[in-house]
């Protein structure tokens, strides 16, 4: 960089508009390399203390099987399933529980939050039920939901919804309320109707805030999934891990944990990807 600044001849063959791009890419590459290194170090440590059959394990495999053993367990689960159902079935049922709740909150919770942001009346009406129930740990309501909605899918989906709904609706409301008044005034002065202002100013300006709520919901949602599969079920990835723990099948427990971690990570990445496409202008005002 500094050499280029000193030497105009060198600077000429690099388009200077790319300066920032190059620097950014370099920084991104470095942070990716660092993440990878930290990940590799963890894996190495795990291998070292468990031996992986290469040397005598420091930790009893009953408590912590080696990475290789976990991989073998995954292989076995893929081949024969768990407790009579395929691994894919367990995965899909968990994904469905999560996805139903997540989707419901995006398509109902977010719009309700937007409405609360736009209208003081809607806020007065809907804020009390959301605010007063917010401090209740939603998992504690699961027994109640089971009495009300039975032991089927409904009570599980609802307990996840109960946790995600306030998260998404309140962040959407706050996003709307923090839209710059000046931009709204500008739109009003240009003769835009209330609906146009909502659609073309308030909604896009709120997107970054809405996405924050959605991304937080991914983490909370996966956690809630574990809680929801703790009782009254005989399938799902979290249930698999929990019931394997009863038999101290630590390798299967770890497979379950890793699948859920991968699920959370992938969903979060997906959200970031969509966000980056949709709100390229975020933070550039």
């Amino acid at each position: 960089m500094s050499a280029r600044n000193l030497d105009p001849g060198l600077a000429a063959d690099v388009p200077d508009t790319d300066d920032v791009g190059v620097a950014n890419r370099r920084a991104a590459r470095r942070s990716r390399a660092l993440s990878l290194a930290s990940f590799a170090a963890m894996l190495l440590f795990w291998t070292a203390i468990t031996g992986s059959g290469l040397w005598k394990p420091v930790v009893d495999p009953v408590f912590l099987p080696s990475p290789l053993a976990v991989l073998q367990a995954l292989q076995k689960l893929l081949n024969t399933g768990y407790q009579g159902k395929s691994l894919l079935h367990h995965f899909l049922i968990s994904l469905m529980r999560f996805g139903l709740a997540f989707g419901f909150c995006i398509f109902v919770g977010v719009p309700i939050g937007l409405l609360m942001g736009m209208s003081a009346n809607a806020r007065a009406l809907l804020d009390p039920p959301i605010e007063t129930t917010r401090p209740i740990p939603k998992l504690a309501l699961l027994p109640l939901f089971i009495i009300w909605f039975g032991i089927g899918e409904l009570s599980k989906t609802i307990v996840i919804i109960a946790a995600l709904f306030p998260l998404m609706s309140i962040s959407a409301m706050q996003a709307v309320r923090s839209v710059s008044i000046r931009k709204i005034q500008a739109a009003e002065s240009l003769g835009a109707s209330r609906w146009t202002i909502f659609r073309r100013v308030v909604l896009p300006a709120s997107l970054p805030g809405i996405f924050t709520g959605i991304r937080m919901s991914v983490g909370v949602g996966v956690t809630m999934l574990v809680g929801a599969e703790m009782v009254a079920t005989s399938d799902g990835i979290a249930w698999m891990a929990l019931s394997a723990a009863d038999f101290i099948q630590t390798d299967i427990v770890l497979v379950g944990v890793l699948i859920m971690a991968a699920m959370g990570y992938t969903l979060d990445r997906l959200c970031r990807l969509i966000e980056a496409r949709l709100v390229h202008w975020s933070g550039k005002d």
Partner: protein
Amino acid sequence: MSIAPIALDHADRRAAAKLVFDGVSKRFGRGPESVLAVQRADAYVGEGDFLCIVGPSGCGKSTLLNIVAGFETPTAGEVRLDGRLVDRPGAERGVVFQQGALFTWMTVLENVAFGPRARGVPAAEARDRAMAYLEMVGLKSFAKRYPYELSGGMQQRVGIARALANDPDVLLMDEPFAALDQQTRELLQEEIKRIWKRTRKTVLWITHSIEEALFLASHLVVMTARPGRLKAAYAVDFDSERDPNVTTSAGFTSAKREIVGLLREESIEAQRQEGVAT
């Protein structure tokens, strides 16, 4: 070329008035903590006038402009445009803000076409109109860019084009060039003066720069320290087309001296108030 004192609230001006300030006052808050921002402003602004407003910081200039824009309602008195009471924002009053009012998620072109589109002009026509105004402010080649890819001066020009593309009767500008450097400012001032001469819009223009005010205005108002009243008004006539060096002419310099003198009294008063307040 010179300035001449004028009574903006003189009854003779009533007949040709586009914009009427009738005893406009604005108080923020209630009780002993309340602030009287504007006190009984009376003025007739003629169609095609370019009225510059100067005054010490905090004297109520923005408040007055926001009342005309319909963002604030006066606590006493009223503003009328073409005889109609102003009580909400409207497309006939275009506003250009100091900064930060562009729609960041839209391209420059979409920003400028927003007004016409919002009022039901077909897309193709709105586009053409937006392009014409972008050409006017010299930003045609930036139509597809986003505001954050533009410099401050360019963004300000987009804001002006956006307001003009909606063809308002009145343009309201609150320190539109305050964040710009001297050179950009002067270029844009000339551009604005050209546009104004061509379109003959009625303009209210707030500025802290006396030179800018004298250069642009057909009429100039000096406001008092808070509560803001209209302290003095002038008819202004400095034409750079007749004399390119008008801003260094003797008439300009003496006019500037006069306004500076008036403003200094008020600024001292404003600072004294702040000293009392804190």
